[in-house]
């Protein structure tokens, strides 16, 4: 396959290196002469100096016979234009754009780019996976006494779903003071109030009991011991 990579930064360089190693005919288009020389030193004669947004540059690069064009510069508007020009002027069958600002992902899809890859978005997704799924959100720290008001959403899998508040073992100095149900209806609970999934619970707790409170309200029931 013939693959054109526009942008010879770190992403473009490593991408091209991988492609060459997989035996694809690869060409990098890069605007900076110094960077072109560096790439040529490492990867050989697979780099062309020019502006990948210019029709004349793409013509010289043989875009008309390219199977894939990948625009991986650090500027989303340039990546968009490279892909659109490649598609509409040279009928390149597959265009792939790197997206730097994750907000642009939906825009690129609407504007007809085949595939867009957002590194920022991918890293964010990874981070979200690593974070506790049901974080406890500190709302307010009360002056003195080390007390704070926190909010947590009860996950469907939590052991407390279906239990009355008086049945729940809360950490020392913690009190459930408000429950907002999934319809958005707030109510002040009594000891007989039953917790449901997706209830938003506002509680007062000691700073050091935060984690214990989170566990009490969100952890699934323990596996039955054999």
């Amino acid at each position, binding site marked *: 396959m013939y693959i054109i990579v526009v942008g010879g930064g770190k992403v473009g360089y490593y991408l091209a290196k991988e492609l060459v190693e997989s035996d694809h005919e690869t060409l990098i288009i890069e605007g900076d002469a110094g960077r072109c020389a560096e790439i040529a030193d490492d990867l050989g004669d697979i780099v062309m100096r020019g502006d990948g*947004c210019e*029709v004349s540059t793409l013509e010289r690069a043989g875009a008309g016979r390219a199977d894939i064009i990948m625009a991986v510069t650090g500027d*989303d*508007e*340039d990546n*968009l234009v490279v892909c659109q*020009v490649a598609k*509409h002027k040279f009928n390149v069958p597959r265009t792939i754009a790197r997206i730097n600002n994750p907000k642009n992902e939906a825009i690129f899809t*609407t504007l007809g780019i085949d595939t867009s890859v957002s590194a920022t978005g991918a890293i964010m997704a990874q981070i979200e996976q690593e974070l506790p799924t049901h974080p406890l959100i500190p709302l307010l720290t009360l002056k003195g006494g080390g007390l704070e008001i926190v909010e947590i959403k009860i996950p469907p899998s939590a052991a407390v779903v279906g239990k009355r508040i008086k049945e729940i073992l809360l950490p020392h100095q913690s009190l459930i003071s408000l429950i907002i149900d999934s319809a958005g209806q707030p109510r002040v609970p009594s000891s007989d109030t039953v917790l449901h999934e997706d209830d938003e619970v506002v509680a007062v707790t000691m700073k050091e009991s935060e984690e214990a409170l989170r566990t009490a309200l969100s952890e699934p029931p323990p596996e039955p011991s054999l």
Partner: protein
Amino acid sequence: MKVIIMGCGRRGAQLASMLQREGHDVTVLDCSEEAFDTEGYLPEDFSGTKMIGNGMDLDDLRRAGAEHADAFISATRGDNRNVMAAQIAKHIFGIPRVVTLVHDPIRAEIYHSLGLRTVSPTRAVAELLKEALEAPEEEPLPSSAEAAEG
């Protein structure tokens, strides 16, 4: 008519002040604060809205009133920025009238065929320059004639 202009350089500022004088509700958007200070190109009596923001950013466009705008013009120096912003205005916000400045005549043609109203100054200016070059010698202006005497 509510008009959003992206880019407050010479061209954007000139257009903004023209449209505002005709009574349109004009918002000018520029990324740099300096575009709006005393060094900028907007006349002092400009009474439209000046907003620091990026014309390719959905939130900034919303703040500029893109959801209710009748027209959008992108007039920065960057062709790619201009066509990206124009496409967002047209396809995401559905602004009825969108015009974009594209210096590269070839890109202007491509985006015209993709449905944008593009204006490419390059060819027009080259023609004007050629015309001026080929025109018969003009009568010297009075001021320059005086200067020649002195």
